[in-house]
């Protein structure tokens, strides 16, 4: 009895009528509930509230502690924290210019590779796959979203790294005039040219991370594509659309929120990915705009590699870098959440 009281009074109410109350339509006065919660319910609400408070405390503690410890390094470095490329907290300058660029480039390569793959796979599962294997494919993609990143890292470091050199070389040979694909030290057509300039690059790390985030994005897109209203689908077919015409006019507009949201979620994961990147790259601390070239760095891998032997001040510097990374992923996630929330997916449930 008691539980319903607060809920019942949360509706929209007309304003109460005046003392004379002589409107054309009698307006009902908002009814105030006098019922109190029973003892059990008060205890329950107290426990739930304190649980929520504890969760909030932990979460806020993580954020504020990071910010608090980072403040020391930030005060010391000042504005140069954003512009310095080197990372020598215990002497000389340190800054996130190089690692931030590396992080963003790896994530961008990952998203550029993962987006078409995830969209293609999601469309295939929903629209093209035979009904027999559909459920199996859904399970497979969802499973792959749960596969640990160290497994992808192993695959990237031991298999992909050596197989993809030829593709890297080919791209840099023929598209090296685009600054992004330029590789210093590569000589076109030289049979004795070393292949090591192409290993451990942003490109390879990006592809490995792409394989990691593609199932996550695919899973979200598949969910949304599958919910596209059947009436509109059949309407498109009835008007003579081909399958692609139907997809373009019904499924893709319906799933636009999920496409953007899934991609952003994947981008967030790609920005924060640590171990798969650590296993691929060889760290350098200067801005590396050539994605095919050996050597790059990312914030997460910087933290993983440097924490072990760091002095207290160096840890503070690492926390500042981590804070910058957190701010970036937070931005991406909130953007994703706001896009997904505006899409046409049903949130109301009534049995």
């Amino acid at each position, binding site marked *: 009895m008691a539980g319903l009281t607060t809920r019942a009074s949360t509706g929209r109410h007309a304003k109460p009528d005046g003392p004379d109350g002589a409107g054309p339509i009698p307006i009902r006065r908002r009814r105030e509930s006098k019922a109190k919660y029973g003892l059990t319910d008060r205890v329950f609400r107290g426990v739930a509230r304190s649980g929520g408070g504890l969760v909030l405390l932990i*979460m806020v503690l993580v954020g504020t502690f990071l910010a608090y410890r980072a403040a020391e390094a930030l005060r010391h470095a000042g504005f140069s924290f954003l512009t310095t490329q080197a990372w020598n907290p215990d002497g000389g300058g340190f800054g996130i210019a190089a690692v931030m660029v590396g992080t963003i480039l790896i994530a961008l390569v990952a998203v550029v590779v993962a987006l078409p793959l995830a969209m293609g796979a999601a*469309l295939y599962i929903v629209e093209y796959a035979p009904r027999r294997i559909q459920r199996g*494919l859904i399970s497979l993609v969802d499973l792959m979203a749960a596969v640990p*990143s160290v497994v992808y890292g192993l695959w990237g470091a031991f298999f992909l790294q050596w197989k993809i050199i030829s593709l890297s070389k080919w791209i840099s040979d023929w598209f090296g005039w685009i600054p992004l694909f330029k590789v210093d030290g590569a000589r076109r057509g030289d049979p004795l040219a070393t292949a090591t300039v192409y290993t451990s690059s942003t490109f390879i790390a990006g592809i490995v991370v792409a394989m990691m985030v593609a199932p996550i994005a695919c899973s979200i897109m598949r969910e949304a594509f599958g919910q596209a209203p059947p009436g509109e689908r059949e309407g498109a077919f009835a008007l003579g659309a081909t399958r692609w015409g139907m997809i373009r006019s019904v499924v893709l507009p319906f799933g636009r929120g999920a496409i953007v949201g899934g991609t952003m979620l994947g981008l967030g994961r790609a920005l924060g990915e640590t171990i798969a990147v650590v296993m691929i790259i060889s760290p350098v601390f200067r801005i590396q705009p050539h994605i095919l070239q050996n050597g790059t760095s990312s914030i997460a891998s910087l933290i993983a590699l440097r924490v072990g032997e760091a002095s207290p001040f160096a840890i503070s510097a690492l926390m500042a870098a981590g804070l910058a990374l957190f701010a970036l992923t937070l931005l991406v996630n909130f953007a994703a959440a706001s896009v997904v929330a505006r899409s046409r997916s049903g949130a109301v449930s009534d049995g």
Partner: protein
Amino acid sequence: MTTLKSAPVGATEPETQPTPRTTLPDRTGPTGQQTPRHLGTIRTTDVLSLIGALAASLTMTGLLWTQLSPFTGVLGYVVTSWILFVLGYALLVSFDENRPTMWDRVTSLVVHSLAVVLLGVLVFVIYYTFDRGWSAIVHSNFFTQDLRNAGPLDPLTVGGIKHAIVGTLIEIGITLSIAVPLGLLGAVFLHEVPGRFSRFVRTVVEAMTALPDILAGLFIYATLILILGFDSSGFAASCALAVTILPIIIRAGDVVLRLVPGNLTEASYALGAGQWRTVWHILLPTARSGLATAVILGAARAIGETSPVLLTAGFTADLNTNPLHGPMVSLPLEAYEAVQSPEPAMIARGFGSAATLLVLVLVLFAVARKIGGRGAGQLTVRQRRRRVRASSRDRDRFAARNRIVDQRQPLAQQLLGPPPDTAT
């Protein structure tokens, strides 16, 4: 409907009438057996144009590769020939079909190949892990010994990853015992105590799902280990993992609780139950499978996380069952550390650890699929049987009570006379 039944043959032939005023169409038709009509969309020309485009692209790329310009590598060959394949296919289809049909065919081809690439790579990643780790997994000592006595140069018949398996299980146990009660309580709080405070908590939790896992590790490292003076230990790693998966569990649990049909809880309130009884008897049981899925997927995430463990757990080759003291290794960390070594045996051990980890995740995932994957309130076969049994017990009880009432009725009639209704 794929077949048309042939019309009955008994229709009268109009040949006796001399001049028909109207002509009836000949409805007898061919009397032979009709075959089901094929409704598939694949025609011979489609297959032929596919084969033609494929042959053209392969030969053209071969020509490019060997004669015109010295490309190297298999991957570049595949990419180039795929592009030529799509272009050639578009050209061939455009000979026969109009433009929308051509676009339909081409996009169908592109979608199929993208799906094949992604799903193929995903399967291959799993296959590759097992393939490289196979030489380590097949030795039973891999699961029964730790690496204390096995150096990098020792063969695979010595040493194993027992310490990592035990460490993973201990860490995941502690992680779940922290994160599950807190996570479920948090989810119930967000659902049951609405207001400004819970909206704020929800915003913060959603923000924290963006926290990169390495930062959770860094936080625990800086607080528990550096400030509070704990060892690098399994407990510290569990705390880091719990911080990582807590927002995930709360968020997933919140979504699942929102899926509980509102009229179920309203019916409970209408019957006079309080909030706590409604939560305990209606909300949680209805959402049980979804909540279990949320927890299990969180567990799968926690098991596979390497970076928080890398910062907080330390590394050891010994078996350590005390989570509070001394370094403790988990499977992903073992895999990561083992492949840092250049020795093939250590690398095989690393892949073996990864394969073991994959099996664990696979099992967790299968369990989640089994009990999850159904909406709130949808019952499993066993749950339905239990409900049927409870219901039939109730029926028997009611029937027994009615029998007693029936036996008493004649006595009451004798005492009080016939009921007034029967007189009229």
